[in-house]
């Protein structure tokens, strides 16, 4: 080897070789990376080869993960992972669109308590809900325009009302996304159990299995999740538009439609008087249809360029589709005179379909299956929203940092897995009951809406840009309407379970704030006063090498210790004077130049005398202390139990000791070449 030019890359080895003739020299270039690194624009880029699949159990696990999740994607592929409107609609709007399947029924069920005559109020309530949705869509389109990087209500509230309001909005949305997953899965499974009654008894395990399936779909990345969920969403739209179109045709053409009777209809006289509170409760229940409409504004970065435009188009499409299906179903149900079932044995949707297309028609089954599938897949909106919001919060240091890390498929894996676990736990805790879960729902959404709408009003008033007056009016109306709905929902649903959300919300806000405080404290501790300050110089440390036996592992650790400092002390703990003397005798033959301290431990304890010895050295010497631990690493994981793991216990004990550097020198049995190597 001769001296090399200074710009030789550090992962490259060059050998100059002589040729047969004087002028025929050649340079052999060895790139030890073996294709694991590529050099581009003066720096190394890791290639897919660094993920070489292991053998045995580890390899099997890696292959299974790749099979389930798919090939790794590079960060540059993120643009390709973004979705157009056609895929964005099923990903981000399926929750809202699917609500149209049960929003009518939810309102009707409350009104039916006051008797059949009260059901005529369903249509005005539906119009009011759609009116609120129109205001929400209009207001949310302003959010998309003002905050194109996503984050939605959290960012708007935080920037305009302050951190605490932002955290309240974030906590409300996080809760709501978890509930979206739990409620949608439970509702989907309930729809299946209408067909297959046997499912009812195993609804929790079936729901958990479905959550696992959606989780895997999401771990494969946003685009693939969209492709997976696109077909059912469009199938539902075709089914419902077909049903409504045919129903309207039959109404207009003057044919009398006979309402299908449910197994156990509500009594026509009613059990309660029709009060304002009952009407408001019906409105609050119908408002369940507005959940999921914030997902588009939160997920703007999931869209292809131009993101803002695509997100707005998706938002408007979502609102139009929901309104059409919801109003269509409500109009037909009230016109035909469908009465809901008192014990949820059959859905209004099913009754209406039977009334229009008749029992046993293929279209009936198509509508029912499409409804069941879209209800299940609406859970995916939670999976799109939660990880993205968690990543925004993690970037702002309000959630643990790994929520901001993208996985091998550019999905936020931590957020997806966390959501799956929590939603699964909530679902299991409520025994998979939709009725028990629904009251917890919607309050979070309306709280977030109210905060973001009022936040935007403050923003427009502050900035006074072009068209600010119109924006102030739109968002003020939005604030008022969503605020009123929030109060109505909170009051009417409080006793039915909304109190739990009201209780949990401040706890989550406090947790988010505590995480932030921790990160801020750590940053204060770690920040450098200036980048130009020189890297400090420390004196050479006193190196302590605990030696239990004189062997190859100990020799390697001592050799390494001597390479970092001339002040090396070996320490041996023995249980009797005789064994200590024997050890010392061997030591004097092995390494007489290295000072050996012998510690007798009559109580046979190993760790405590060693820790106290380190304390004593620390007190008697001003230099920093470094402990070099030799560790034998067995060839197979199951051989670990055959070794006492003193090194691991010592490392754990020293981890929290201040001013102590612990260096582990592992010794692998298969590694016949010692760490101590001479020059090549």
């Amino acid at each position, binding site marked *: 080897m001769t001296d*090399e*030019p200074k*710009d*030789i*890359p550090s992962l490259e080895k*060059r050998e*100059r*070789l002589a*040729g*047969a*003739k004087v*002028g*025929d*020299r*050649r*340079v*052999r*270039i*060895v*790139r030890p990376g073996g*294709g694991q690194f*590529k*050099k581009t624009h003066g720096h190394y880029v890791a290639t897919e080869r660094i993920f070489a699949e292991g053998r045995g159990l580890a390899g099997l696990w890696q292959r299974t993960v790749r099979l389930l999740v798919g090939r790794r994607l590079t960060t540059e592929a993120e643009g390709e992972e973004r979705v157009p409107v056609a895929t964005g609609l099923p990903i981000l709007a399926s929750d809202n669109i699917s609500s149209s399947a049960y929003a009518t029924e939810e309102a009707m069920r409350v009104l039916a308590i006051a008797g059949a005559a009260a059901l005529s109020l369903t249509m005005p309530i539906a119009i009011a809900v759609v009116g609120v949705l129109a205001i929400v869509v209009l207001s949310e389109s302003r959010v998309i325009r003002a905050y194109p990087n996503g984050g939605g209500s959290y960012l708007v509230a935080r920037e305009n009302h302050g951190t605490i309001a932002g955290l309240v909005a974030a906590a409300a949305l996080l809760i709501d996304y978890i509930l979206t997953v739990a409620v949608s899965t439970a509702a989907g499974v309930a729809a299946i159990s209408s067909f297959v009654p046997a499912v009812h008894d195993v609804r929790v395990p079936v729901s958990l299995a479905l959550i696992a399936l959606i989780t895997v779909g999401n771990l494969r990345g946003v685009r693939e999740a969209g492709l997976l969920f696109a077909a059912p969403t469009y199938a539902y739209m075709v089914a419902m538009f077909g049903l409504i179109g045919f129903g309207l045709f039959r109404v207009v053409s003057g044919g009398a439609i006979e309402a299908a009777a449910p197994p156990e209809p509500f009594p026509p006289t009613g059990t309660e008087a029709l009060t304002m509170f009952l009407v408001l409760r019906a409105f609050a229940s119908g408002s369940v249809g507005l959940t999921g409409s914030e997902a588009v504004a939160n997920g703007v970065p999931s869209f292809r360029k131009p993101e803002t435009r695509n997100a707005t188009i998706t938002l408007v499409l979502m609102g139009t589709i929901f309104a059409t299906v919801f109003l269509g179903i409500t109009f037909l149900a009230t016109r035909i005179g469908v009465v809901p079932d008192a014990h949820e044995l059959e859905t209004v949707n099913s009754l209406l379909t039977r009334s229009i297309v008749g029992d046993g028609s293929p279209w009936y089954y198509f509508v029912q299956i499409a409804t069941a599938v879209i209800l299940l897949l609406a859970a995916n909106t939670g999976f799109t929203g939660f990880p993205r919001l968690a990543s925004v919060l993690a970037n702002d240091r309000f959630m643990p940092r790994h929520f901001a890390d993208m996985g091998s498929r550019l999905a936020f894996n931590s957020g997806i897995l966390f959501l799956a676990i929590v939603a699964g736990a909530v679902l299991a805790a409520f025994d998979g009951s939709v009725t028990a879960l629904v009251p917890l729902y919607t309050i979070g959404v309306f709280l977030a809406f109210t905060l973001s709408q009022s936040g935007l009003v403050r923003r427009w008033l502050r900035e006074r840009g072009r068209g600010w007056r119109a924006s102030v009016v739109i968002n003020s109306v939005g604030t008022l309407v969503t605020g009123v709905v929030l109060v109505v929902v909170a009051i009417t649903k409080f006793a039915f379970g909304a109190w739990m959300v009201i209780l949990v919300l401040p706890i989550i806000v406090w947790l988010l704030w505590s995480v932030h405080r921790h990160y801020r404290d750590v940053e204060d501790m770690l920040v450098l006063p200036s980048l130009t300050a020189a890297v400090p110089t420390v004196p050479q440390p006193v190196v302590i090498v605990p030696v239990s036996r004189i062997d190859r592992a100990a020799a390697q650790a001592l050799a390494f210790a001597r390479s970092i400092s001339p002040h090396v002390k070996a320490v041996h703990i023995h249980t009797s004077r005789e064994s200590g003397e024997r050890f010392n005798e061997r030591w004097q033959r092995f390494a007489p130049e290295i000072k050996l301290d012998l510690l007798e431990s009559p109580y046979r304890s190993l760790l405590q005398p060693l820790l106290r010895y380190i304390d004593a050295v620390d007190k008697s010497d001003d230099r920093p202390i470094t402990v070099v631990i030799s560790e034998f690493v067995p060839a197979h994981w199951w051989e670990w139990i055959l070794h006492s793991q003193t090194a691991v216990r010592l490392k754990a004990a020293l981890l929290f000791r201040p001013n102590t550097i612990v260096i582990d020198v592992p010794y692998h049995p298969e590694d016949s070449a010692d760490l101590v190597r001479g020059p090549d």
Partner: protein
Amino acid sequence: MQAKRVLVALAGTSADPDVINVAVSLAKPVKGEVIAVHVVEVPWHLALDAVLDAELDRGEELLDEAARVAEQAGMRIETELLQAREAAAAIVDTASEKKVDLIVIGMPFRRRMGRVYVGRTVQNVYVGAHCAVLAYRQESPE
């Protein structure tokens, strides 16, 4: 003749996969070894060990591709990336150093002035090598 150790010189032309397959078909039946070599020719105005990242990256890529082709044909091969003033001399010297029995060198079908063009490197390897040399010319496209 048994080709136990075969050196394949790769220039990054369309003939490369054919040359690798020829070398593997000769070495595999006798449980021999194949060493694929690519030489980056360094211009005289640069130092012999100048850092030529683009050329080395390309060389590494075509050697990786050769290893892949060989693996498909059922053989693991050794690869070597070199820098030299003249490719032929480096190929011949590496062949001597590695004590190979045969050098396989390929050339795409090219014409110059109406005649098939062999190229300087192929000619010089043919003339300079101490071991046997097999020159593989791609078939004519006509």
